Structure formats: structure tokens, C-alpha cells
């Protein structure tokens, strides 16, 4: 049986699709994870761009850990939602675009986290130019991910 169809017809896929609780629970978790990941990431990206100078660079990674919890919630709830209509989603351009932006956002966040760990002690008042470019790109990626995510329902 086709792998995507087997996801849709699995006990879990059927539960998310048909139970009273499954779908509303998954989309609520997905909204919470999104708010946590995007909200914290954007605030911290703004810090790297120079806003809120009182927050030490060393503190940013601790909050990024919270953001990753949001990301994990969305990875799990997103997988659950995907299972409902796997065949449809893999052919949906808006969904694929969203996944691209989410992946770019996550990779950028991970890279920034590594740079903060290794080098931020030497940064002084403003972060290096390359870091600032990545922080700006991160804001663009997460915003685009959220916009395309919302538009999936409208651009079938």
C-alpha cells in the first residue's frame, strides 16, 4: 500500500480526522507551538538586530531553548495533521512552500544558536554584520512560514 495512504488510514490518522477531540486538539497545539517558536525567535532576532540592548547575548540561548519546545510541539502536531490528508499535502504547493520556509527558519535559528554559544562574548555592543543579516532573514522566514501556513486553507 502507498505509504501516504497508509498514514491516512492508520489508527492515528483516522483518529485525528474523525474524533471530536483529535483535530481541534492538534490545531490548538499547532497554534501554541507556532506562537512560542515564531514569537520568541522574532523577539530574539530583533535583539540581534540591536533592539533591547539590555538583554545579554548569553541569555538569548536560554530562551531559544523554550522556542525549540514550541518547534517540537509543532513538529508532532504538524505530523498528526499531515497524516489526515498526506496525499493531498505532498501535492499542495502552498504547503511545500511553508515547509521550505519552516526548514529555513529552523536551520537559521540553529546556526544563530551555535554562533551565540561560540562567539557572542566578543561581540560588544552590536553583533557582526553576517549575524545581523541572518537575524533579519530569520524574521522573513518565520513570517513567510506563518503566512503560507494560513493560506493553505485558501489556496487549494
Amino acid at each position, binding site marked *: 500500500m502507498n505509504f501516504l495512504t497508509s498514514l491516512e488510514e492508520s489508527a492515528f490518522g483516522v483518529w485525528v480526522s474523525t474524533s471530536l477531540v483529535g483535530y*481541534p486538539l492538534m*490545531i*490548538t497545539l499547532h*497554534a*501554541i507551538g*507556532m*506562537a*512560542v517558536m*515564531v*514569537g*520568541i*525567535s*522574532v*523577539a530574539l532576532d*530583533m535583539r540581534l538586530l540591536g*533592539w*533591547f*540592548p*539590555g*538583554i*545579554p547575548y548569553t*541569555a538569548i540561548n*536560554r*530562551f531559544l531553548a*523554550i522556542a525549540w519546545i514550541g518547534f517540537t510541539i509543532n513538529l508532532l502536531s504538524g505530523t498528526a495533521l499531515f497524516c489526515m490528508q498526506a496525499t493531498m499535502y505532498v501535492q499542495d504547493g502552498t504547503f511545500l512552500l511553508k515547509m521550505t520556509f519552516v526548514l529555513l527558519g529552523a536551520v537559521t535559528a540553529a546556526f544563530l544558536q551555535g554562533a551565540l554559544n561560540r562567539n557572542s562574548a566578543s561581540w560588544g555592543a552590536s553583533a557582526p554584520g553576517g549575524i545581523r543579516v541572518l537575524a533579519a532573514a530569520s524574521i522573513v522566514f*518565520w*513570517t513567510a512560514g*506563518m*503566512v503560507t501556513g*494560513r*493560506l493553505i486553507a*485558501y489556496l487549494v
Partner: protein
Amino acid sequence: MDSVYDWMVQTPINGLVMGYPWTWPALETFHFLGLCLLIGAVLIMDLRLIGFQSTIPLRAVHALMPVAIVGFCVNLITGLGFLFGDPHLYVINYAFWVKMGLVFLAGINFLFFYFKVEPRLERLGPHDATPMIAKTVGALSLVFWFGVLAYGRLLPYLGTGGG
């Protein structure tokens, strides 16, 4: 009540929403962006209040307040867009009123923080423990705002009997 409803559906906002197919998705998109700004800033400030990362000066984290306010204002405006665009959809839905109640409670909690708690925090030294009242206000803020988020997401699935 009918006259308020009649007035709302005759406003220009209603015309914008009903007249163009992209108004509603645009309102939703900005509502989501606003909530991310609000939740992100609130989460960082409230976690610090509760005691997470207490090496960060409270004043530094407090600088995020404008971000939260901008997020809230964006959602107030887009929220009015939804409400005036399709008032009947919301006023009959108990989940909408619960959500608004939670926003109101979050506002009261914030005012209490601003007028009663923050002056005390400003008198704290860098190594003083955060007072219990500040931790309580921070925790309540998180409960209220995540409640707003949850009820907002569930609006189509609660009071209207299914979406």
C-alpha cells in the same frame, strides 16, 4: 441588541470584509502575526518574572513591552475587523465571550502589575529574589494569554456546534 447588529453590518468595515474575498484571510494573517509578537514578548517577560534566567536584569526584559503592545494593537484592530465583518458569527458563540473575558482579565492583571508590582521591582537590588506577587502576576499572565490563544483557535469548533 438587533439595532447594534444592524448598525455593525452597515459600517464600511463590514463592506470591506463582505465585498472582497481576500479581506478575511488578510485579517487572519495579521491576527496571527500580532499574536506571535504578543505571545513572544509576553512569554519572555513572564518567564523572567517567574524566575527563569534571573541573571537577566528585569529592566532589560521590560524593554519588550512595546513589542507586546504593538502585537496587541494589531490584534485589536484585526479583531474588530472580524467582529464587524460577521458579527452574528461571534456574538452567539460562548467561546468568543470566554476569550474576551480572558483578554479583559489579562488586561486587569497587566494594570495591576504596572501600578502595584513594578514600582516594588524597581526598588530591588540585582541579587534580590523576585517577590511572590510578581511571580504570581507573571504566571497568571501566561495562563490568561495562552487561554486567549486556545479559545481563539477553537472558536469555530465550540459555540457554533462544529466547523
